[in-house]
């Protein structure tokens, strides 16, 4: 495979063709903050926190490093006043959802983001899609999905699938940066999964249970 040579923060980096800027930076030991990235999943580009400045042929652009493929002679800057300002605003917005998430508040401290800049949102989901993508790509069960769009977008368990698959799995739980997933599951469990609650004397799904 062809080697692509680029510069990240002034450091000469080589990466295979088709790799993303984020992957190239990782192999070079340069840290770019991420929230929606997971090594086992397809790049998603949801959280935008991995935004970097990419300069090619004299013009500089803002790109999301987790979905941007490496290019020959690309010059990438992972920190600059402009990048920091954008990351701070993204974190300001995320803090309106998940002020107590360790991952978000850790980054917030680093970038000086403000906890109270925006009015608090009722849902503490930050729409990273890790649970949805993990369930779809790794487990191939599709027990949890997105519904709605824009400000009304949220994650939602599909009761028919979740009642069969989730109880013994729950592998998506530790991926969630805010623990909203656990809350959504507890809600789905109590509202829509009677089998899980009436353990033992049930049901159509668990044929072997008495």
């Amino acid at each position, binding site marked *: 495979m062809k080697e692509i040579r680029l510069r990240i923060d002034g450091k000469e980096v080589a990466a295979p063709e088709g790799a993303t800027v984020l992957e190239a930076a990782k192999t070079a030991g340069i840290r770019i903050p991420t929230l929606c990235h997971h090594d086992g999943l397809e790049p998603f580009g949801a959280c935008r926190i991995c935004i970097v400045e990419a300069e090619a042929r004299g013009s500089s652009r803002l790109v999301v490093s987790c979905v941007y493929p490496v290019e020959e002679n690309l010059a990438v800057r992972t920190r600059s006043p402009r990048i920091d300002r954008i990351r701070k605003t993204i974190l300001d917005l995320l803090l309106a959802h998940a002020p107590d998430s360790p991952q978000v508040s850790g980054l917030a401290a680093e970038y000086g983001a403000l906890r109270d800049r925006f009015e608090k949102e009722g849902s503490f989901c930050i729409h990273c899609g890790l649970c949805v993508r993990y369930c779809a790509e790794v487990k191939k069960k599709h*027990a949890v*999905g*997105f519904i709605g769009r824009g400000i009304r977008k949220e994650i*939602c368990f599909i009761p028919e699938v979740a009642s069969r698959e989730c109880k013994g799995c729950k592998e998506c739980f530790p991926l969630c940066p805010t623990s909203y997933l656990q809350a959504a599951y507890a809600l789905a469990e109590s509202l829509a999964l009677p089998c899980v609650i009436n353990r033992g004397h049930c049901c159509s799904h668990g044929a072997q249970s008495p």
Partner: protein
Amino acid sequence: MDIGRIDAIIDRHRSEASSLIQILLDIQAENRWIPGEAISRIGERLEVPAARIRHVATFYKAFSLVPRGRHEIHVCMGTACHVRGASRVLDASQDATGIRPGETDPGMKFSLETVNCLGCCALGPVVEIDGKIHGRMTAARAAETVKGLEGPRKTE
């Protein structure tokens, strides 16, 4: 909705996953809303996970996952209609139907919605009823038109 009808619609699109939105649109057009059994049937036949169908069906405003009335009333609240008195037209429509925007009456007769522009601002205030555009609406005429749906005897 009859499972045979759902199958017929899916067959018309040769059971391809790429036809998901067309199939949903056809079901929506025929049934006025997309019932749960349609989602599971489409999922089986197209091999598309139910989570994905729900995502698509909740993404577009054209689809409804809750039952809709026999008559769809869309009151335009766009800027041009607004300045020409759309809010009075909406009030009159609410009074005539007894429901608020986004709702369907228990008798399944009306569903009322507000829209942000129907694209014919010169006709404002505009109300779209069952796909037909009614321009230069007044509160009185809106109430009259809504009450006249399905003949005068059936209105309260």
